[in-house]
């Protein structure tokens, strides 16, 4: 028999048992549904990660640190050797850990690398407060603005590199600081207060005061107030690094200056947890690798943007695997449904098989007839499941995006090619499930089969 005739015949057979076919297909559909949504969610997550990366990182830059634990590589179970650059960093729950930091000497050393065009210290600054006349004081953090970052602007404009004494203000601060609207804020000044460290110079000059009140006064230290002009108001970011949503952006130079005011006289002065090294011709991965190798040799730890991306994707991959596993279990369960249905189909059509064999149908054609029938069920299940997932996803996408505050980012991204491959795979699984029943049909004795009334 010709393939087209077998295909038509098997489709017709399925039509004659609509309820049974549909129910069996639905079992496969559940798996297809789960797998389609998983694929769509991981596409969305991947695209989100890619956007986080492209909005925050310059692919030609490498993050450099001295302490391995900064990039999540250190062994926290092993005692760490003392290093003169030790400073403390605040980690979760407010606990401080001692970490090796980059000093000016380190920065200079890396600047000397022939493949490196520029080194930028990473400065994250805890401001004492920000305010403006007539407004309350608010706590805030400031971070140096990297030209690689592309935050969404509500009002004003970003000049790259950021001009000195200008600030990019998150939208959330606009009404708190008493501005009517974002447009109103642009061009206005705000005050950034930095708590000065204990003034060692004054102590050296005047000696330690004997009076308790004076000691307390000295310990309290004073604040440095700096005026910054608002260059732009930023929309609540969807693709910033988590935890940095309310950060103020200032220029690298300003960030370093404020940092110096805050840290001078302490053991944290001019020490940086990490820095960004820009690689000459960094579009070429080989150049990045060269610099990373050199950094490693000199005792630094580094992470390229590609590695950052991989790290973020890792988490997504684990989640993906878990949901995919459930989908696969559903598919495996549905295989038994297909086997069962196909056996029933063979039993019901014993006489027809007998007649076809008596009329000279080849064994392999009989077998094919049932395998095709199983394939149709697989196709139907895959199509129903992925279509349902697609419809649900299309309906839910705007709602999810709103609930998770994703802005223009869609959580579920459906890829027609992926869905097609999924359906093809399900068809193959269904054919596999139909193998035994098809064999049984092919082996039926026509004389016995025709005796069945």
């Amino acid at each position: 028999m010709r393939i087209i005739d077998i295909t038509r015949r098997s489709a017709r057979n399925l039509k004659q048992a609509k309820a049974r076919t549909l129910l069996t297909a639905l079992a496969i559909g559940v798996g297809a549904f789960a797998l389609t949504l998983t694929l769509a969610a991981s596409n969305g997550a991947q695209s989100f990660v890619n956007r986080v990366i492209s909005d925050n990182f310059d692919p030609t830059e490498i993050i450099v640190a001295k302490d391995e634990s900064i990039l999540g590589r250190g062994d926290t179970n092993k005692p760490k050797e003392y290093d003169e650059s030790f400073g403390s960093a605040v980690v979760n729950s407010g606990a401080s850990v001692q970490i090796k930091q980059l000093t000016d000497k380190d920065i200079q050393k890396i600047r000397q690398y022939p493949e490196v065009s520029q080194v930028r210290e990473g400065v994250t600054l805890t401001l004492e407060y920000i305010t403006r006349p007539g407004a309350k004081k608010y706590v805030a953090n400031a971070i140096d603005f990297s030209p690689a970052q592309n935050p969404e602007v509500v009002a004003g404009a970003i000049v790259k590199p950021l001009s000195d004494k200008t600030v990019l203000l998150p939208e959330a601060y606009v009404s708190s600081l008493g501005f009517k609207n974002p447009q109103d804020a642009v061009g206005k000044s705000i005050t950034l207060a930095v708590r000065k460290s204990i003034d060692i110079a004054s102590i050296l000059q005047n000696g330690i005061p004997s009076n308790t009140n004076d000691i307390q006064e000295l310990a309290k230290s004073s604040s440095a107030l700096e005026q910054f002009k608002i260059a732009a108001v930023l929309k609540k970011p969807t693709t910033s690094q988590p935890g940095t949503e309310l950060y103020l952006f200032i220029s690298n130079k300003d960030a370093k200056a404020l940092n110096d005011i805050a840290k001078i006289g302490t053991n944290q002065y001019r020490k940086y947890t990490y820095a960004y090294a820009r690689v000459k011709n960094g579009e070429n991965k080989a150049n990045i690798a060269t610099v990373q190798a050199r950094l490693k040799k000199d005792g630094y730890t580094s992470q390229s943007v590609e590695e950052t991306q991989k790290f973020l994707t890792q988490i997504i991959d684990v989640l993906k695997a878990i949901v995919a596993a459930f989908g696969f279990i559903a598919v495996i369960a549905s295989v038994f449904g297909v086997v069962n249905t196909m056996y029933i189909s063979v039993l019901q059509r014993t006489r027809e098989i007998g007649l076809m064999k008596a009329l000279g149908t080849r064994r392999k054609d009989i077998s094919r007839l049932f395998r095709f029938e199983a394939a149709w069920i697989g196709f139907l299940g895959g199509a129903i499941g992925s279509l349902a997932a697609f419809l649900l996803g299309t309906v839910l996408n705007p709602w999810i995006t709103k609930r998770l505050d994703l802005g223009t980012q869609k959580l579920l991204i459906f890829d027609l090619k992926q869905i097609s491959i999924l359906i093809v795979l399900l068809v193959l699984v269904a054919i596999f499930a139909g193998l035994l029943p098809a064999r049984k049909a092919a082996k039926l004795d026509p004389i016995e089969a025709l005796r069945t009334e």
Partner: protein
Amino acid sequence: MIEVKHISKTYGKKDSLLTALDNVSFSIPEGSTVAIIGKSGSGKSTLMHIMSGLDHPNDGQIVIAGKVLHDLKGKAMDSFRATEMSFIFQSFFVEANQTCFQNVSLPLEISELKQRKTKVIEALEAVELLDKINAKASELSGGQKQRLAIARAIVNKPQLIFADEPTGNLDSVTGDKIIDLLFKLNKTNKNTLIIVTHDDELAAKCQIRITLKDGKIIDFKQRKKVSK
């Protein structure tokens, strides 16, 4: 010429040995009408199965148009059956959920013949069912179903048609019409018609009448010379 040479068929082993056919030999000219009669258990169904190649004899040969049937292997046997013979059954065995067209086109699909539509229409016309071409088989009466089965049997112009109790499920008036139709088609198509039956009246209408009892031929009657 169809030659049946020393066919023996037994079932079971040793103690429970059952002889279905015991050294059966005869020959029939092409284009003739043959009735194989006998009570149930006489071996007439087994003989039909062996003559059509569905079953294998323990001994003996079937020679159809010079070809030894059971020497054909697998694919050759299937395609021989698909092109050279067909069947009509007591309980019709038409697919109730399929249309008349689909039922009749089955043998053409199996033998991968071209010009299906013309052939199906021709066959349905011959059994006067052309008006039902797109009707489902389940909508037909018993006699119409058997006519549909006949259309299916003649559509690929086989040289040999086996009919197993073709009137067994029909009332006598309808049965007679079916028999008339079979004989008429036998004359126009020049195919050999072998009817397995226990109906003496029907058997009497055939040119050759073979009576079986306990696996042996007890009577072989040839009504008149068959003209080619």
